[in-house]
């Protein structure tokens, strides 16, 4: 083999497209904005395939949240029985509202994790902003979130949940949740390309993750100490905030404490959690974009 290659001079390699590799995070976002039609095409592809049979499509949008609600009801029944306390039968409305974002997060992460590997045959063929794939996976899942939200809104009205101005917090939290999910989707989709068993680990984490978020539990069920820990878990500010704003009509700019079963007051919301949600979203999205862009230079070699 003719390799007149002194090993030393490789270190001073000139990298082509160097200017593109050092692109800023805003640069990446601008590039994606430029490729928004592509993101939409991928999104439409994912949606079209799932909603090819309209009935099944809508059924999917509802099935996961319904399963989670059912699981949550059983879980709470068991929990209250076991602890021997008079159960705080938290309303079905609240359980519904909290199961939807979790179902969204879980499904979107599963889809996004596999998005790059599923298009592996494109990686060595065509150049396009790779970020479009996990973005589209999460956006396609957002349609399910929207469909679910409309249906739950109807149920809430039927259940007689009072409507208040605080419901205006919902869109903000939903947007933050979507961006947060995209951040994770970016990280996990490239991790799964480099290490193909990441998707199994993700699946296990998603299966158990529901217990680490205030979907089944409520902070006041856990007492002041563990309740505070629960509120610090990454999805908590989104899920807790949505519940309080949509079902309890609580203005998220004010703190809220609720009595635990033994009568002590437990903090279930603090305005700082809005800041926490915002910081989590920005940090995750930024990290996701940086890591993904860095790794995407190797996609053609890995796929």
């Amino acid at each position, binding site marked *: 083999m003719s390799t007149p290659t002194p090993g030393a001079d490789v270190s001073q390699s000139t990298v082509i497209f160097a200017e593109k590799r050092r692109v800023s995070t805003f640069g990446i976002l601008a590039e994606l904005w430029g490729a928004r039609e592509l993101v939409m095409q991928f999104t439409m592809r994912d949606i079209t395939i799932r909603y090819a049979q309209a009935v099944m499509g809508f059924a999917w949008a509802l099935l996961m949240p319904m399963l989670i609600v059912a699981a949550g009801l059983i879980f709470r029944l068991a929990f209250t029985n076991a602890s021997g306390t008079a159960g705080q039968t938290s309303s079905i409305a609240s359980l519904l509202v909290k199961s939807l974002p979790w179902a969204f997060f879980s499904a979107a992460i599963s889809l996004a994790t596999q998005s790059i590997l599923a298009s592996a045959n494109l990686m060595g063929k*065509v150049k396009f902003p790779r970020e479009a794939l996990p973005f589209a996976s999460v956006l396609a899942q957002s349609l399910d979130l929207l469909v679910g939200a409309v249906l739950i809104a109807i149920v809430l009205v039927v259940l007689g949940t009072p409507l208040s101005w605080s419901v205006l917090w919902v869109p903000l939290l939903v947007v933050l949740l979507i961006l947060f999910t995209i951040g994770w989707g970016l990280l996990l989709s490239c991790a799964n390309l480099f290490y193909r068993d990441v998707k199994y680990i993700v699946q296990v984490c998603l299966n158990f993750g529901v217990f680490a978020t205030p979907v089944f539990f409520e902070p006041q069920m856990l007492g002041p100490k563990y309740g505070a820990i629960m509120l610090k878990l990454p999805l908590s500010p989104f899920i807790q905030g949505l519940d309080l704003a949509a079902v309890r009509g609580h203005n998220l700019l004010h703190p809220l404490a609720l009595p635990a079963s033994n009568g002590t007051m437990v903090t279930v919301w603090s305005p700082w959690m809005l800041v926490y949600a915002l910081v989590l979203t920005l940090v995750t999205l930024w990290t996701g974009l940086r890591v993904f862009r860095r790794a995407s230079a190797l996609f053609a070699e890995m796929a």
Partner: protein
Amino acid sequence: MDHTLAFDHIWKRFRRGAVHDSLRELIPAIVRKLAGRDRAELGARDFWALSDVSFEVKPGEVQGIIGSNGAGKSTTLKILNELMEPTKGRVHIRGKIGSLIEVSAGFHQDLTGRQNVFLQGSIMGMKKAEVTKKFDQIVEFSGVSDFIDTPVKRYSSGMNARLGFSIAAHLEPDVLIVDEVLSVGDYGFQQRAFAKIKKMATDGIPIVLVSHQLDRISELCTKVILLERGTVKTSGTAAHCINTYLHPPESDAPDPEAALHGFRLQSLHSLNGLAIPSGTDLSLLLVGESLKSSYPYDWNLVCSVKNASTAAEVHSVAASARGIPLPTETKFEHRIDLQMNLPPGGYIVQSFLWASDTGRRIITGPTLTVQVIAAAKFFGSAQLNLRWSDVTGNSSVIPSGETMPSNNGNFDVPDDPVGRA
């Protein structure tokens, strides 16, 4: 602005083996490494897929890249497409790149042809409005218009590829990269696809073409590089590179065989150029030297013509069979005239000294690649110099038993026989 594309001393290193693509493999490997074992595995496993490859393509030029599997052609294209970064070196591209590389890669089997046109167009960087505008053209070119609203999983593989090619062909790029897509679809589609690329070349778009179809290379490319194990083995005209590719030259050192056998074949030249209109004569001059006064009785000087793309022998004749004895103790010059009654394409002419009893080649002489170019249009594998006239009601003009006169090029040749002007 002139659109150009250049490879400036590109090196690309790959890691061979020991790539862990699952955590299940990675974690034990890390543990092993931490435990101090497994050291020797690293380091020596690099290999260079490309070493110091350079070329430049200007408007109006078509750069061909040929070479065996694993020579570095795909890596070159991936680097050109900005899918991979070279380890060392720079790529300069001025203009929007379009690439015809396995063109239906983005199709989703459950979507209809129409949906896939928009999806694929978008993946290739077209705006939706642009696709909408060109949609009818794309579908018409592909020839699948009857099935455009059918999911592509019901398409034949040829239809799939045709639709994919049509989308890519309507990109209107500033520079074009073509990878082995000329064999897509049926004969008619291949002709149209080839004509399309030729049109782009004529329009002055710099093109890089990778193909194993050497006749296409020689027909389309203005220059070629031959890659071998990541290095540029040779570059220059299509004929030269194809020739080197098919018949790697022996070492430049004085041929020990020639000294041994006392016979030398020095050169083979064409007296009338390397582009020969189909059906006309190719005149060759074979120069050599004979050092001995006698040779084994079965030694023959042979001239053979092979098809450059298939390497199949077309015609082979020994000098003795034409009454020319093997020269003895003299420098010699032989003139060989061949009527190239062959379809357009590349042909390799070679002279060698051959032992008819054993069928062994004693000395392989120089080779020459010539291009037979289209004259009067015909289909098939031989040019029969057919003359066709309407003699309705005038049967007396039909000669009986007349032998065909030689007809050296006395038939219509189109204005632009090479089609590359």
